[in-house]
């Protein structure tokens, strides 16, 4: 199943798939840098699509599909752009919990893809790579990428 098919078969996301980074808000696009944009398999605005049905939830922002040169299957980057500061950790972790629960409940087709869950800082980067905060996030399954998510053609891990 392609990333596009999985998005279109997911409740509430049926019409959310966009080419390239088209589903991202204009202010979020500069934070995502793909080495080769032709390898992008599209994107989906999860936050916007789920807002009507789940208005009060801490919803996740968006998903980006990518075909790496050294992987057979498409890889999904689940990205949350959010202020990178201490007092936002709880909020972002709530969003992560929401995303995991939603994937299990409604997003099972998307749940089958290998993935990274990533917090991209929308402002200054205020965590260092070795900080306890970043380790706390890692233990929950979340990568803190700083202000930019770089998607390489070939995945390192």
């Amino acid at each position, binding site marked *: 199943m392609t990333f596009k098919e999985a998005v279109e078969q997911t409740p509430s996301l049926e019409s959310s798939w966009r080419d390239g980074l088209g589903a991202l808000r204009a202010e979020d696009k500069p934070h995502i840098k793909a080495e080769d944009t032709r390898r992008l398999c599209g994107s989906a605005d999860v936050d916007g699509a789920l807002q009507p049905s789940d208005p009060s939830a801490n919803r996740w922002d968006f998903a980006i599909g990518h075909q790496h040169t050294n992987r057979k299957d498409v890889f999904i980057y689940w990205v949350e752009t959010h202020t990178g500061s201490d007092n936002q950790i709880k909020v972002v972790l709530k969003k992560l919990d929401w995303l995991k629960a939603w994937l299990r409940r409604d997003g099972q087709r998307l749940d089958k893809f290998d993935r990274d869950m990533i917090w991209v800082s929308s402002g200054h980067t205020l965590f260092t790579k070795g900080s306890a905060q970043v380790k706390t996030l890692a233990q929950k399954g979340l*990568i803190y990428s700083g202000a930019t998510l770089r998607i390489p053609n070939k995945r390192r891990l």
Partner: protein
Amino acid sequence: MRGQVQGELSRYGLDWSGQLADFLDVYLGEGMRAVWRPGQSSIEWEGKAVDLPQLAARKRKIKHESLFFIPAQRVLALRDGWPRPFTDYTPGDPFAVREYSEKLRVLVEQEFGAAGDLFPRERRLKSEFRDLLQKNVFSNFHLRVDKVRSQKRLVLGPGGAVGNIPYMVWSAGQREFVPLLLGFYWLMPPTKISTRAEIEWVVLEELEMGLHPRAISVVVLLVLELVARGYRVCLSTHSPQVLDAIWALKHLRENHASPQALLKIFEAPNTPPMQRLATSAMQKTVKVYYFNRETGVTADISNLDPSAEGQAEAGWGGLSEFSGRANEAVARAVANVDREGQQ
């Protein structure tokens, strides 16, 4: 190098006959002549070429050096618990180690020759530093001069005269730290003038060597004390903790944080002298450079931005790369462990 090095070498009977290769071997250490390749190597200072062969041949003697060098090999400056004289080394040992060792010998013999504690000692370092060092390096032991059959030696011991611990029994951290402490003593005389007037620069190699992170924290604070006293300090480090401190200093300054915020990082007391130190440190300029071993090129990574475009700056010259990879590996494992269809 204005002649002081050549003067010192000559004083101790070292003769390089004006030859650059021989000079490099006695100055930098045996075998180091290879670092200079005639026709290929060059040195520039403020945009002007430096004629190294001519400098090495210089006979003019200048009494004082304007730079104080604390070498990475400082642990070798003590043997059996007492600083070694310059002439105790072989001609192939680096000048910086011999010179540093000699300075410590003169300091200890002239200023601490009599019985008594070298540490803690009134008017040597701020009392706040003495408390921090007691807690994080010396575990409430005292550093003092002891005599065994007329031979003086430095020992660590409890408050009383009994139970002294000789040099070979010290922890690795204590063996590394004591020569460093004596260097700080040398730079911070207990006089009204709080610096050595002739010294402008202090070069401190790898301040973290052998030290527990809590001890590193005190040493970084001592470096800020040097800076606050007016020295210009050049550090080399392989410690991400040192860069953490520099990174924090930069962001605290940019965000107009209080001096107390800086002191909190070091778990230092919020006393007026320490506030003055922190205020002064936060006004200073800090630059960070990364030496790329593969290319031989140095890069300015002063922003220390973890999301910088260049890997040299983002990974802090390689010092935070491992942590970054460890975090990502764990996050990926957790993010994928319970997903639908995962084998």
